[in-house]
C-alpha cells in the first residue's frame, strides 16, 4: 500500500496547499476583519455598516436593480426559448446562435457599447437632438434604469439557455396528450408546458439574479457618473477610500452583507424549487410545434429586430466610436480613421503588456485548475474519503460569492507577507485569485466525466499490476480527455477578459486587459477605451470560436 499513500501525499499536498492558501485562509481573514478592530474581536465594523443610512440605500439599490433586471431578463429569455423550441419561428438555427451573442461579450464591455449607443451623446441621443433641435437627450442611461437594462440584456441568455434545455428535455408525450385530448395550442402551452418548465424558469431566475447582484462592471460604468452605488461598487469604493478610518474592515463587513443576501436567495431557491424538477425525461418522439400562423413572419421580424437592437447596434456603435477621429464632430467618412488603434498598439506599451498578462494569467490559471480538478474529481467520485462535503464546499465557495468579495479577501490575506512570501503587488496574487475563483468551473465537467468512466476499467488495470498513478495516466485520463479540454477552456475564457478581481488586485506592470479598458474609460479617454474594448470583444469572440472548434461544440456558444 505504500505507493498509494505516497501518491496520495503527492496529489493531496498541492491540493491541500492551494485550498488552504487560496480559499480557507483568505475566507477566515475576511471574516476576522469584519468582526474585529485593531486586532481585537469587535462588532464595530458591523455596527458601522448597519447604522449607516447610506448603506441601507445601497442595499436597496442592489436588490431593486437586480430584481427588475431579473424580471426583464427572465421574461425575455423564457419568451425567446419558447419561440425557438416550440414554434415554427423562421430562421431558428440562426437565432439559436444569435441570441447567445450577449453571453460572449463581457458585461463591462457591453456597458461601454451601450454607452456608445445610448449614452448622453450616444448615437441615439445625437440623432434625437439633431432631428428635434433640442438640447436635451431623449433619455439618460446613467443610474438605475440604464443599469437594469444593460444587466437584463447581458444576462438573459442564462435564462434562455436554462429554459431551452428544459423544453428540449421535456417528455413530449405530456403535451401530445393534451393536444389529442382537444386542448388548444395556447391552452396546452399555458396549462402543460409552462408548469413543466416552471422549475427551470425559477432556476434561471435565481442564476440571473445572482449574476446581477454580483456584477461590478455594469454598475461601475453606468453608476459612478450618477453617484449611484450598489453593494459591489460600494465595496470597491470603500476599499479605495483610505482616508476613511478602518475602511478595509468596513468593506469586509459590507462583503458579508452581500454574501448573506446571495446566500439567502440560494437558500430560498432550494426551499421553493427543491425536488420540483419533474417530467423532464426525454421521451420518444418530437414535441408538438405551435404554429404561429399568420404571425409567423411578424414574429420572425420581431426577433430579428430584437437581435439587431440589443446585440448588433451597441457593438456597431462602439466600433464606430473606436474609429472616430475627433470626438464631437458629426459622423462621416472624413471623421473615421484607424488612429485610435495605432495609438493603442504603437504608443502605449502597457497595452501589449496587459494583453500578455491576461493571456498568461488565463492559461496558467486554467492549467492549474484542471490539474487540481483531476485530483478533486478523483476524490469526490472514486473514494469514500471523509470530508468530501467540505471539499466540495471549498471548491464552490469562491465561485458562489461575488468576485469583489474574493478580491477583498485576497487583499486582506496578502497585503502583508505571509510566511515570508509577499504576493501583494505581484501578478501572483491575481493568479491565486483566478485559481480560487475558476476552480469550480473545471471541476464540474471533470467530475462528470469521472462518473461516466466505469471503475471496472481502472480495476482491470490495477489487477494487471498497474499502480494507481499508472492506471490514472494510461486508462482514466485518456478517456476523460475531452472533459479536461472543456474544463480548461471553461476556466480560461472568462479569465482572459476578467475585470472584477483584477481591478482591485493589479499593480504596476501587472495590469490585465480588462483593467486597461476600465482605467482608460475612467480617465475619460472615450476613443481609446472604445478601441481597446473592440480588441477585447474580438479576443472574446475568437477564443469562443476556437473552443467550439477544439471541443467540437461541447463548450462555447
Amino acid at each position: 500500500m505504500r505507493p498509494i499513500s505516497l501518491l496520495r501525499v503527492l496529489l493531496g499536498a498541492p491540493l491541500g496547499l492551494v485550498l488552504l492558501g487560496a480559499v480557507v485562509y483568505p475566507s477566515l481573514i475576511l471574516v476576522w476583519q469584519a468582526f474585529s478592530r485593531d486586532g481585537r474581536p469587535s462588532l464595530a465594523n458591523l455596527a458601522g455598516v448597519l447604522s449607516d443610512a447610506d448603506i441601507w440605500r445601497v442595499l436597496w439599490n442592489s436588490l431593486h436593480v437586480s430584481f427588475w433586471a431579473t424580471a426583464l431578463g427572465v421574461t425575455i429569455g423564457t419568451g425567446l426559448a419558447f419561440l425557438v423550441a416550440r414554434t415554427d419561428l423562421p430562421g431558428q438555427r440562426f437565432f439559436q446562435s444569435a441570441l447567445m451573442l450577449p453571453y460572449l461579450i463581457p458585461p463591462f464591455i457591453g456597458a461601454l457599447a451601450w454607452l456608445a449607443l445610448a449614452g448622453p451623446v450616444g448615437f441615439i441621443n445625437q440623432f434625437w437632438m439633431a432631428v428635434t433641435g433640442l438640447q436635451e437627450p431623449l433619455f439618460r442611461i446613467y443610474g438605475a434604469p440604464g443599469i437594469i437594462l444593460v444587466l437584463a440584456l447581458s444576462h438573459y441568455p442564462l435564462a434562455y439557455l436554462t429554459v431551452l434545455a428544459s423544453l428540449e428535455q421535456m417528455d413530449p408525450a405530456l403535451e401530445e396528450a393534451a393536444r389529442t385530448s382537444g386542448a388548444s395550442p395556447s391552452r396546452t402551452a399555458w396549462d402543460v408546458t409552462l408548469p413543466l418548465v416552471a422549475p427551470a424558469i425559477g432556476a434561471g431566475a435565481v442564476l440571473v439574479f445572482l449574476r446581477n447582484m454580483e456584477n461590478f462592471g455594469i454598475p461601475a460604468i453606468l453608476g459612478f457618473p450618477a453617484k449611484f452605488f450598489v453593494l459591489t461598487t460600494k465595496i470597491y469604493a470603500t476599499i479605495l477610500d483610505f482616508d476613511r478610518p478602518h475602511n478595509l474592515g468596513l468593506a469586509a463587513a459590507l462583503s458579508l452583507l452581500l454574501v448573506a443576501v446571495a446566500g439567502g436567495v440560494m437558500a430560498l431557491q432550494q426551499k421553493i424549487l427543491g425536488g420540483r424538477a419533474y417530467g423532464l425525461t426525454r421521451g420518444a418522439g418530437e414535441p408538438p410545434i405551435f404554429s404561429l400562423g399568420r404571425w409567423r413572419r411578424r414574429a420572425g421580424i420581431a426577433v430579428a429586430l430584437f437581435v439587431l437592437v440589443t446585440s448588433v447596434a451597441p457593438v456597431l456603435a462602439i466600433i464606430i466610436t473606436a474609429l472616430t477621429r475627433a470626438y464631437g464632430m458629426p459622423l462621416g467618412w472624413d471623421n473615421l480613421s484607424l488612429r485610435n488603434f495605432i495609438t493603442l498598439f504603437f504608443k502605449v506599451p502597457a497595452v501589449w503588456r496587459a494583453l500578455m498578462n491576461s493571456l498568461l494569467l488565463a492559461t496558467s490559471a486554467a492549467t492549474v485548475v484542471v490539474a487540481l480538478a483531476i485530483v478533486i474529481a478523483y476524490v469526490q467520485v472514486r473514494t469514500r474519503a471523509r470530508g468530501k462535503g467540505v471539499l466540495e464546499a471549498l471548491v464552490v465557495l469562491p465561485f458562489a460569492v461575488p468576485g469583489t468579495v474574493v478580491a477583498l479577501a485576497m487583499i486582506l490575506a496578502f497585503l502583508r507577507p505571509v510566511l515570508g512570501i509577499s504576493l501583494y503587488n505581484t501578478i501572483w496574487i491575481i493568479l491565486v485569485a483566478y485559481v480560487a475563483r475558476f476552480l469550480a468551473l473545471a471541476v464540474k465537467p471533470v467530475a462528470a466525466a469521472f462518473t461516466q468512466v466505469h471503475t471496472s476499467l481502472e480495476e482491470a488495470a490495477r489487477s494487471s499490476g498497474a499502480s494507481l498513478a499508472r492506471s490514472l495516466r494510461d486508462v482514466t485520463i485518456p478517456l476523460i480527455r475531452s472533459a479536461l479540454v472543456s474544463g480548461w477552456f471553461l476556466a480560461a475564457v472568462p479569465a482572459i477578459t476578467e475585470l472584477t478581481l483584477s481591478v482591485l488586485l493589479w499593480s504596476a506592470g501587472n495590469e490585465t486587459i480588462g483593467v486597461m479598458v476600465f482605467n482608460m474609460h475612467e480617465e475619460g479617454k472615450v476613443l481609446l477605451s472604445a478601441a481597446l474594448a473592440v480588441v477585447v470583444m474580438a479576443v472574446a469572440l475568437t477564443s469562443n470560436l476556437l473552443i467550439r472548434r477544439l471541443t467540437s461544440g461541447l463548450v462555447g456558444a
Partner: protein
Amino acid sequence: MGQTWGFRSFTGVLATLVVVSLLSLSPGEALAQAKGTVTLYTSESLDKVNEMKLDFEKRNPGVSLNIYRSGTQVVISKLQAEFQAGGTLADMVWMADIDYFEDLTKKDLLVPYIPPEADKVPAKFKYEGGRYHEVRLIFNTVGYNTLRVKTRPTSWNDLTDPQWKGKIGVASPFYSGAAFSTLGTQVNMPGFGWDFYRKLKQNGVIVEQSNGTVAKKLATGEFHMVSVVDFMVREAKAAGSPVEHIWPKEGAILVPTPVGILKGAKNPDGARTFLRYLYSPEGQRLFVQQGYVPVLPGIEGPKGVPPEKLEVVQTDQAYIGKHREELKAKYRELFELK
C-alpha cells in the same frame, strides 16, 4: 602570471572607466550608470505618460519605467495602503495633488534632488529644496464648444452667464487635484470668492469626476462652457473636436502637478535619471509636443501658448494646505454632494 595579467587588465579597465566617466560627466555631478526598473505611481494621462516612457527608455538604455497609473485619489489610497503594510513598490510619485507632497515632506518621505538640467528653471518650481518638482505647467482655464458658443468668452465670469444655464461643467475637487487647486485659489481671488461658486450653482453647474470627463463632454456638446485644464482642450482641438479655450483676463490658474523621489526607493539612480530626463531639453520638447507648457527656459511652448502677456494666478499652497478640510466641507455643503 595570471595575477599579473589580471591586475593589468584591471587597471586598464579602471583607466577606461575613469576616462569614460570624465567624458560623460555632466555639469555639476556624475551619476552612477542607472539601470533596472524604476516604478512610478502617477495620475498623469495614461497615453501621454506611456509615450514618455518609450522616449525615456530609448534615450536611457538599460533603464525601464514601470508605471502604475490611476486617478489621484486611487493612487494615494494605494500608496497609503502600502505604507501601512510596510513599504511601497514606488520609487517615484507624480500627480496633481501638491498637498499630498507637502504631507510626504512633513513625514520626511521624499528625497531632495535637483538635477543639473534644472539649473535655469525658476526656483519656485523646485519645491522644498528639490523634494518635489514642477516639470511642466498646466493651467486651469475656461473652455467652450465652438459649435454652441459663438461669442468667444473672455472671463471666468462667463461661466455664470445664464445663457449657458445647465450646460456648464466642472471637475470635482474631491477627485481631481486640479479642481481642488482651482477651488482653493478662486475663493481668494478679488471679486470671486465663494460668491462665484454660489453663482455657478445657480447657473446649474454639473460637477463631474475628472477633467477628462469634462473635456470629453465639452467636445460632444453636452457642455457648452467649462472650467478645465488647458492642454486637454488643445489636444481635443488638434484632433479636430469643436473646442477652444481662452486665457481668462483675471488670470489662468496654475495647477501644480509635482513629481518627487520617495525615500527608500529601490532604484534611486534610476529615479534620478528619470527626473533628469523630465527636465532635459528632450523631455521638455516631448511635453511641448504633448501640448504642455515647458518649464525650461529656451524651449518654445506649444504654438501661441501661452500668449505674450499671460496673466497667471499662482496657487497659495499655504492657504490651501491649512484650509483643506474647510474648503471641502463648504464645497460639499454648497453642492449637496455626498
